[in-house]
Each structure stands twice: as C-alpha cells, then as structure tokens.
C-alpha cells in the first residue's frame, strides 16, 4: 500500500494553509473548488499501471466467461447439489456493497450527517459500478446466458410471461430499480459539479459535460428546485435500502432449503449489506485519501464516524448471527441443526471460522479510539469485513445447499472452486477497479457544493460558538 500515515500528501498549494485567517488548518473556502477539481485527471505511470492491471483482470474474467459459455457450466466448481456458489455469492455481495452507497446518499443525507460529503460521491460511484457488476452475475450464472432476456417480462409473440412469484424475477425488478435510482442520485449530485467542469473545459469535453450538466447555471431558482428534488429523491431511495436487499434475501428465504428458509434473512441481509458496503467505502476512501491527498476533506474524524457505524453494524450483525443459531436450536428441526453444524464443521469449516473472525471479532477493535483513528488499522479491518461478508454469503448459499433434506443427496466434498470461478470473481474486482479509476480521472471525487455547504455550516457553528462565548 502506497499510503503512509506520516507522509504529508497534500500537493496542492501547501502554502495555502498558512493563509487561513483563523489559524484553522483547512483549505480556505474560496479554494475548495480548486482543491477538489485539481485532483481530477489523474495520470502518470502509477495510474496507468493500475488501470492496465484492472483492465487485464477484467479481460481475464471475460475470457473465463467466454470459456464457460463455450463449454458449459461444468467448467465451474458447481455440482449437484451445490448448484449455486460463487456467482450468486458475488451477486449478493456486490449488491450489498452497492447498498452502502444508497444508505450514504439517502439516509445520511436526510439525517444531515456531517461526515456525509466526505464519502458521498465515491460511495455513489461505487454503488453504480457495484450494481452494474452485481447485475452481470446472475447472467454469468445462467446455464444459457444468451437467453438472459427471457427473464424480462417483454411482450412476445408466444405470449410467454415470466413467473412473478419467482424471487429471481423480483430480483430483476429490484436490481433494475436500484440501478435506476443509483444512477439518478449519482447524476443529480453531479450536476452542479458537472457545470463547473463544463465551464472550465474546452472542445468535446465541454460538449459532453455540457450535455450531462443539463444546462445548470447555479441560479437561486435552480438551487431551490435542485435541493427539493434531491431531498425527494433521497426520501424515495430510503425504502430501497431496505427493499432491494430484502428482495435479494428472498432468493433464499422464500425457498424450502434448510439454512435458507428463515424470516430472519431479510433484516440479516440488509444489515450485512450496509455493513459490507460501509467497509467497502472505507476500503476505497483510505487509499484514495492518501493517493489524492484529501486529508483535509476526508478527515480522521470522518473515518472515526464510519468506524463507529461499522462497529454498530457489526454488533447488529453478530446479533443476527446469534439469532440464526438460536432459531435453529429453538426450532428443533433436525435437518436445520445438521445443516448448521455442517457449515461450522464440515468442508466449509475453514471458511466459516475465517468469516466469524472477520465479521464478528475483527470489528470489535473499533471499540478502541486509537484503532478508529488509525487509517492502516481501519483499512485492514475494512478489508477483513469485506472478505468476511463475501464468505458469509458463500457459506449461507453454497454451504446450506450441501445439506438438504435427503442425506443420500448430500454433498460429499463441498464445493471446489475452479480457475473459471476464480477468474470471473477476479474479473469482477478488476472491472470494479477499472471503472473506479476512470471515475477518479474524469469526475470530482468529492461533491464541490456539498463540501462548501458543510464548510460554511461548520464555520457558522464555530462563529456562533465564538459569538456566544464572546457575548457571555
């Protein structure tokens, strides 16, 4: 990791800080725009290398998928009875990651969380990319992927319709809704910034930014409508945080499979999704902060806030996990007990215990303030959470399938990942990184207007405090 806590990494006008009248170490208000926009257009050997590596991984994934399409699903590690494994796991995991974006965009916005602007833009970008990837996985997963459009209820000559009772169809709607809202949110948030970029750009870039900025001029009337639209959209998106991942959990909860068939699953999945998504935000923000020198915009205090949220969510998650086991015991169904014990002691046991360490034990470190304030520690724990959450999904999905009702059809040796599964999984990570690097280059990673507003709000509060103490 290139990041180093000790290194001073704000290249843009270090002298600026001394100019601040209040002795405050922050970038002055008038320079915020320059500070943020100046970090765009990343290039150079390191960037291109990263972009190339991410692109290479993407191509590897594409090649693996091509091979799978050509030969059939037999090239993956899936088998009877573990018919779902890494692809559906990745689908659920990516859509969970995406959820944090919506959570930050909508819920934190409505609650006016002070640390929101520091993360909102990159979280929203992450959301859009993650939803794109997660929507690809169910298609990759299809035995006949070239027929994926049959999952859409389009009018056709044969009067064939989809099964609206199927959780997978609900998924289709959930993912499409998610993608639409995430894109709108991302775009709407970008509009004022895009207008600034338009004003500064020349040539074809100006045209593109111009079209995307929707004729934004920054008038009071526009701002008034903009704020209203943004709040409304945030309000509309709130149910999505709950619904989309609940629906993803129905893929499992609505079945009769032991280990899946549980009313606990929707809240469990939603909590897990936000948990893994916020961890992903940290995983992205900390290197980004180091790389682009955004320490002033993404402060340690901001990171502390996210860590506290993560700690809360991890406790919630641990509670749900405990409830899952309690229900298995309390329900008294023998097959559920076998299923649960198998996941903790059978072929999936190593993954199970790694998952427990990563998702339940590791976040407990956040009880210590020093850990919450240490970027490397935060990064390590957030990566652990991401890994753990992927494994959690994997164990629920593949592990539960290994122990179904009929013992004669139990899985003998669990699931063995092949190079194709692995290639596609790595490809998805590569594609995510590739898109994110493009985002960093072409769009501002922090919302200019929001940051300014937050700056002003803080300043007002400080002044109010100062005024109050002065008056007293």
């Amino acid at each position: 990791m290139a990041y180093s806590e000790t290194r001073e990494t704000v290249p843009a006008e270090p002298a600026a800080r001394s100019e601040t009248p209040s002795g405050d170490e922050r970038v002055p208000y008038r320079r915020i725009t320059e500070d943020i926009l100046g970090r765009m257009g990343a290039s150079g050997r390191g960037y291109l290398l990263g972009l190339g590596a991410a692109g290479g991984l993407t191509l590897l994934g594409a090649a693996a998928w091509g091979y799978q399409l050509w030969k059939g699903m037999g090239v993956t590690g899936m088998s009877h009875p573990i018919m779902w494994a890494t692809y559906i796991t990745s689908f659920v995991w990516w859509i969970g990651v995406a959820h944090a974006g919506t959570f930050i965009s909508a819920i934190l916005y409505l609650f006016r969380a002070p640390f929101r602007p520091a993360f909102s833009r990159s979280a929203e970008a992450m959301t859009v990319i993650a939803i794109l990837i997660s929507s690809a996985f169910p298609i990759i997963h299809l035995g006949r992927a070239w027929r994926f459009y049959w999952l859409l209820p389009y009018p056709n000559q044969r009067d064939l319709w989809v099964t609206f009772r199927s959780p997978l169809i609900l998924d289709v709607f959930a993912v499409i809704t998610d993608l639409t809202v995430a894109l709108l949110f991302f775009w709407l948030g970008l509009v004022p910034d895009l207008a600034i970029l338009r004003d500064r750009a020349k040539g074809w870039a100006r045209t593109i930014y111009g079209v995307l900025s929707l004729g934004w001029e920054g008038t009071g009337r526009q701002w008034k409508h903009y704020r209203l639209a943004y709040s409304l959209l945030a309000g509309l998106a709130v149910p999505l945080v709950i619904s989309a991942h609940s629906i993803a959990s129905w893929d499992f909860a609505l079945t009769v499979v032991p280990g899946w068939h549980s009313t606990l699953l929707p809240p469990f999945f939603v909590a897990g999704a936000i948990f893994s998504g916020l961890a992903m935000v940290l995983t992205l923000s900390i290197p980004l902060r180091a790389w682009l020198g955004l320490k002033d915009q993404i402060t340690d205090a901001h990171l502390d806030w996210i860590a506290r949220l993560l700690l809360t969510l991890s406790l919630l998650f641990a509670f749900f996990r405990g409830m899952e086991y309690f229900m298995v015991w309390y329900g008294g169904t023998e097959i559920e007990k076998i299923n649960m014990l198998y996941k903790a002691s059978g072929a999936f046991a190593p993954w199970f215990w790694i998952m427990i360490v990563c998702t339940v034990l590791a976040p407990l470190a956040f009880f210590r303030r020093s850990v919450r304030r240490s970027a490397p520690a935060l990064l390590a724990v957030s990566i652990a959470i991401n890994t753990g959450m992927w494994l959690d999904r994997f164990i629920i999905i593949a592990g539960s399938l290994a122990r179904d009702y009929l013992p004669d059809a139990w899985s003998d040796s669990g699931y063995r990942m092949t190079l194709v599964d692995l290639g596609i999984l790595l490809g998805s990570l590569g594609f995510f990184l590739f898109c994110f690097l493009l985002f960093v280059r072409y769009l501002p990673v922090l919302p200019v207007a929001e940051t300014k507003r937050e700056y002003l709000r803080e300043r007002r509060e400080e002044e109010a405090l100062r005024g109050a103490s002065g008056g007293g």
Partner: protein
Amino acid sequence: MNRRRFLKVLGVSGAVAAVEGCSSNRDERLIPYLIPAEDQTPGVSSEYSTVCRECPAGCGMVARVRDGRAHKVEGNPEHPINRGTLCLRGQSALQDLYHPDRIRQPLARDPRGRLQPISWEEAERRLLDALAAAHSGRTTRGGRTAWIGRLETGAFDRLVGEWLDAVAPAPTRLRYEPFAYEPLREANARVFGTAVVPDMRISEARMLLSFGADFLETWVSNIQYSRAFSAWRQARVQGKHRGRYVFIGPRLSLTGANADQWIPARSGAEALIARALTAIVAAERGAAPAGGGAGEPAALAEAAGMSVEILERLGREFAAAAPSLAFPVGNAAGEDATAANEAILRLNLAAGNVDRTYILDWPHALTATARYAEIGALVAAMQAGDVRLLLVHEANPVYHLPPVLRVAEAIGRVPSVVSFSSYLDETTALASLVLPDHRPLESWGEYTPRPGITGLLQPVVMPVFDTRPTGDVLLSTAARLGRDLGAPDFHAYMRRSLGLDEVGWLAAVQRGGIFTAEDAPALDAGLREQAVAGLGPDALEGKRLASPQERSPASSETAPLPARKYPEFAFPQRNPEDAQTLESTGAPDGAVRLTLHLYPSLYFFDGRTANRPWAQEIPDPMAKAVWGSWAEIHPETARRLGAAQDDVLVLTTDAGRLDVPALVTDRVRPEVVALQLGQGHTHYTRYARGTGVNPVQLLSGASEQPSGALVMSGTPVSVSRSPVRRRLVVLQASERLVGEPVAREMTLTELVQTPAEGGAFASREEERPSFYRYIPEGKHHWGMAIDLDRCIGCNACVAACYAENNVPVVGREECARGHNMAWLRIANYGGELSAAGEATKEAATAPHDIRIRFLPMLCQQCNNAPCEYVCPVNATVHSKEGLNQMVYNRCVGTRFCSNNCPYKVRRFNWLTYEFPAPLDQQLNPDVIHRTKGVMEKCTFCIQRIRRARIDATTEGRPIRDGEIMTACQQTCPADAIVFGDLKDPNSRARRLAEGPRGYGALADLNTYPNITYMARVRAEEIHGAKNG
C-alpha cells in the same frame, strides 16, 4: 449369407420380419427406408421378442425397434423366467449392440503381429487354413483342436458339436462359464445322486435362509428369484405367512440386505452352522440327524464362532416353518464349499424341504457347464503344445482365470487362436484370427435355461457392423470342406433342429419361444419327463431322484462332453504353511492378515458386462460407488491398519498383489476383506479397460475338494495401507436417517395393528390445512405407488430410465465432480449397522436386524411443487393431470429449481455430453436430447402417457389401468413400482397408495407429492412361536 438372402429369410418369417436399416456400410440417414417395410409405421415402435444372453439365466426379452434402430429392450411378458422384467445387465444389451468399441470386421495378424482388417472371404479361408494346419502332419492324434465357448443349448450347441466332429478329429470342447456351480452340483450328486443345478421354490417357503447364495443378484437366475422373492414378501405383508429371511455369511451382499436378519458368520463356517442347524432341526422334528455332519450343536456352534443360543433359536424357527428353504453358498465360494453345500442340502432334507421348496428335477442348463478340472486340463494341454488350434466363442478365460495358471502363456503356445468375439477382450487380444460374431440382438438363436422353456432369438436390426453369425461361419466352412451339416445357414439349421411347422415356428418366434413349462410347479409328470428328455441325455444323467442317503458313484461323471485324456494338470496346491510364507516373504510392515472374500457383481456378472457404460455409471447398490473397484473392510480393521476411506490398500497373497482403495463399512466381518469380481480389465473397450482391479490376481488357482472348483474366497490375504490415496467415486454421501425418515419401515406386528383405513403415517392431504386444493383439475391424475417392501435395490429401473430417457453417461471424472445425470436413483438408507463408536469386533459378529431400506427416488411430481414457483421463466409448470413438466427449450439454467427441490431429483446439463457413435443410435426418438445449460428430470415417461392416450383415442376408449407403464415400472423384477390414475378409485396405484403403509416422502413440507411410498416391513424373530 448375403443381404438378398437375409431379406428373403426375413420375408419368410413374415410377422416377425426384422428391419432393414443400419446396414453394415454405415448409411447415416435420418429415415433409413427408401421403401418402408409393410409392418412398419414411421414413428411407431415395433416389438420383436428375443432372449437376453447377458448371463446363463436366459430371460425373455422384447426389443423395441423404431425406424430400423433398437432403442429399448424390455422383458418379454410371455417368458416364464422373467415375465416382462429385466435386470440392469439385460437393459444394457442395447449398449452391447451399439457399442462404439465393437470389432467392426474380421481381423487377422499381419506379419508384424498386429491385428489388421481383412475380408470375410479371406477370414474364412484363414480359418480353413488353421484347421488344416492343426491336423496336418504325420500324427493322427486327436485333441489338437479345442473350442471354448459360453454355455449354449439347443441348435447352436449341437452345431458346434457337429462342426467340431466334422472338421477336427477328437476335438476338445468346453462350455465355459466362470460360475459353474461345481460345489453345488457335486453336493447334489453326493446327497441325491444327481449333479444338477436345482431350482428353488421361494413362493412356498415359510422361512428363507441363505448361506451366501446371492439369488437376487447373480445366483443361477436372479430375475426369476427376484420375482419370486418379491411375491413372497408381498404374501407376508398380506398376512399369508410370517416367514423370516435370514442371511448368513461374512459379507452382507445386496441379497443379504433384503433379509430380516444378518448373521455375520465367519468365512468357511457355513458347513458347521448348517450341521448344527441340521442337528437342531432333526431333533425338533423328532428324527435322527440325516446322516453326515451330525454333531453336538454346541460344539459346532463354538467351532463356527457363534453363540449356540442364536443357532438353537434359528434352528427351531427353521424347523417350525415347514417348508422352509436354505439356499446354498454363493458363487465365489471358498475351500469347503462342497462340504457346506452338502450340509445345507442335509439341512433341507432334515427340514423336509426337498421336492417342496428345493426342486431337483427342474435342472438349470448350467448343469452342463465345464468343470474347472477340465479347463485346467485344457490349459495343461496348451502348455504342453498339444493344442494346435483354439477356438474361442463368447468366453474370456484369460481374464477369468487366475494369472498363476498362466493361461495367456498357454494360449501363446497355440499356433492358431481363432476368436469369434465382438470385442478385443483379454483372450481375443491373443488371437491370430478374429471372426466377429453378430451380437444377440442381430442373431438367430435359441436358449433353454430349464426344461420346457426354450427362448428364441431373432435379429431385431440389421447388423450394425460387418460381422457374421458364427453359426453361418461354421456351416460355410464345413460346406467348403465338403461336410454337409444339413443346412445352408444357421437360421435354417435352427428351424430344422426345432422341428416346427410354419405356423408353429411363426407363433414361437412371435411369442419369443416355446414355453411348455410355466414354472416348476406347473410341470405335470408326463410333461416333466418330456421336458427333461428334451434337454438331451447328456445334460441330465442320473436325473431320477436317488434316495437321499444314497450316493451315486457315477454322479460326478455328469459332464456331458467327452473329456479328452490330457496329462493331469498340476493345480497349484494351497500350502498350509503359506501363512508363514506370507510373513516371511516380506509382507509389508503394518500388514494385517485377513480373509479374502470375493463376490460376483450384479452389474458386471463375471466381468462380461463391464464394457457397458450404464453398468459402470450406475452406482453399485450397496457401495454406491461408480467406475472402479474397492476393498471393503470393517471399521475395526481400518483402525488396525490406520486406513480411512480412499486410502489405497495393498493386498498381497502368494499369487499376486493388488492396490485398491478402501471402502470402510460395517457390512463385512472384521477379519474379512471383500472385493468385487468383474472389473480390472486390461482390454475390453474404453469403458472397462483400466477401470478397477481384477481380484482373481490374488487367487492361487487351487481347487476345492471334492468338487474341483476354483477356490475364490476364504483364503488368507495380507493387507497393508499404502501412503497413496485414490478417490473412490461414491455417489451417496450418507445413509443416515434424519428426523422422520424419508424411507420408513415398520415391523410386521406394527403392520398387523395398523387399521387398513387411514394408514400408519398421517400425511394425507386432507389432514393438513390449506387454502388451496392441490388436486389436478384434469381428467386424470397421474401418480405412482412405490413399495419399499418389494424393492430389492437392484437398480434395474435406473438402467431402464437411462435407456428410455436418453440420460447421458458422463464418465468417472464428471461423476466425481457431482455431475451424474441419473433421473432416478436408488438411495440406500439405514445401512449403518452400528453407530460409529461401537463398531467393535463383538458388535460386528453379533446378529444384526437389517434396517436397510432401498428408496427409489425420482421426481415426486409434487402438486405444490417447490421447483415451479422459483423458476423465473416458467420453464417448469404443472399440468392439469398432475405432472410437473419440465420445458427444456424454455429453461435458461438458473438451477433455482434444483436448489429448491427437497428431493434433489433435478439434474443439470453441465456440459454437452456425448453419445459416441453408434451408441447414439440407441437414443429414444420420443425423447428430446437435452443440450448444455438446461435442467432435466423424471417426466413420468410422458412419452408413454402420450402413446397410450393416442392409442385409446384411436380406439375410442378410455385409457385402461395398467396400460401405461413407466420404464422403471416395466422392468422392475420386484413389481415395486405401480403407475396409474389416482382419479380412478379402482386403479392399482390408488388402491396401493391408500393402503396402511402409504406415506408421502417429506410430505410435511407441503409438497403434495404424487408418489406414495409404502413402508418396508421387517419381520421380527418370534420366540417360540410357530410361523406360517
């Protein structure tokens, strides 16, 4: 015989005309006819009766032929042996016909020693040359020509004899079957003066005892006995008797798994146990022990390593249940098999079973098979260079006989070896000339397994390859040598030999044979005389029942073929010291000395069906393993060896060494290591070659006295663990019974206490509350009743399903990856006899009540199907007649349906699976061949439902109950599966489903399955009570 002539012959047989189609020059036409034959309707299968020749049982078979291609074989309902049913081996006859590795034309060695294709003209010339060469020179000494062929009866048998006599002076001829029942024949000869393979009348027995005879698998006539056994169990459930079935032996076979109790007796203790039982039975019945083997039961029991109390209870029960029936020892018997069989016969005598359940005068054709001593004599002659020409027809002695006999080397000393084999098997690989015979489905022929039952074979398709019937070759070569054997070709020869007029012939061919004896009981005295006479004087010398105590000194001379006087073959003698030899000759460290127990395979018989992909791919009924061999050891032994499942064990005897993965099971005694026969071919097609091991490599070749049979079991073997692991592909993960088990059983007492109405298991639809009515709205409601009490776990239905529904064979690697495609599997539950912790030696040798239940698991066609609502694209939907229908071309392959199927009966096409040509010609044209990426599953043979509906509509009548038979039901020898309309209150399926034993599998999940299982019934031992 040219093609024109062939067609002429067919034309004469009119109604049974075989069809033109796959001619030998490999036309690949979708519609094979230019001008269709008159009796052929495109799209409708014709049925031709023939005979299954996969083992000596000789079941009747019907081949379904569509557009010139045989796509299914089924049992012939007219045939008294099997009555329409067929086992897995019989089902696989199609894969024999269309095997991709068949020899496609005659072959001969070129100067460099390689087999090269030649023409038939050339081939017959070379055969004549070989004959001439064998008998040229100064000497006129006989015995220079030898024929080894499988057991044949009737015309072909006679033709071989006449031909040999015509072309060779004093030839040797062996009817060679690896399982020749020598100890049984010898024991019958010693006790009754008649060296026959007898019949067992299970139906009348009130108690069954088997000392190892696997009569449901490979023993004499497995389908005949499976049918009888299933009917016997049915009678028990119906309250007609309370007979128990007890299995005695060191290993629990499939036949044993169908017993009520297993007494894990030490290998070789059968004689002692039988003698002890005889003494007890005789005492019970107030008679003196019936000669020989008398002794104090307590002493005998102790010698047998059993508690005398168990034996006394068993003996009293056996005596009380008159008539009872004790089966002899198994096929791969040990050193004192004759003594054991003799003791068992005396036990039957003492219990008054002879002529009631133990039928001597309906002998099996196996009575006429060659003895091991004769084979040994021939091998010695070959080794001595006395044999100049060896003719091999449907026999593979190089594979079957222990390598220590050096059969291959002996054959190597024969200048001309002519094989008529269709495959390059171990023996044919040594041949100098290969004249491939037609396969049975391409041939004329006849086979008489028992007097009064003569099955007729007719060609059902045109020859697939450029092969020629051996009968024709023999007649043609004889004619060229100027010997007229009375017929131009074998078809004419056979007709003449059968002596039927035109009408009788047509009727016989159409019916599939001449059946004057339905079953042994139906034989009246006159008919029996006639039937026995019909078998030929050679087969049944001394057929009259001698008085039991009388021994016929001539009885061992029943071998019908004149034995050549060769120098005595020095059989390897078992060295009594070899226990020490083994240890001294460096048996590996940590080795454990065990007793070898070999057993024939239900699927491969003696190894002859190991080339069938279905036999390899369908899991063994007990081990559930596919594509390989394994050594069964007890957990206790495994602990001593430090070995676990899949650890390769090294088995060493003086004769050889085998490396084979371990299968740890408590179904063998701790001192026994059990191996299956039939695998481990070094040749014999891509499917058999290199698959598993051939345990005859461990045999010393010693013969059992006094019968002279090859000793196959009970000999010492040194076993050690090698550091290597080789994964045995086992397709069933667990036999555990979870919760309220899906495979249920009850005791006979519980059954008696259950009211006939309502049933023992409260799982009826009306008892569970629901908003919905899950009764199909259509005219019919298809359902099935599966009787677990009848199911013997033989997996014949699985093979039938593979054949009927074009289920692909995926091979070992894909099976190991969990990609097996079977639509129907026979799960094996409750097989763990003792809990893991208590697999001690004491527990392992105590009698076990057998709780094993075979559960045929197929799509339950749920009326509230979990698979249907999760499919996003409506690819699996419910029909108005209750069928859960899979729409292949709508499926996109989410596999959600499989996840949500609690029965796990759905299969996914992971890859594109191939049917190597010409195996693809077997594919059923009524059933779609699925492509990669779609889900598939049991359809209740919807194509058969459609066919019945079309027929009924055409004839303007409703579909009759029993008219539709699914493929699995059709072939089931135990009649365990009944398909029918559940809306018809009188349908058999409905009546069975409403019986007291019915329950729905996992019905508490509210799936409303259309299959009703009927619980297995176990008969308990009743102390002091009289059975019957």
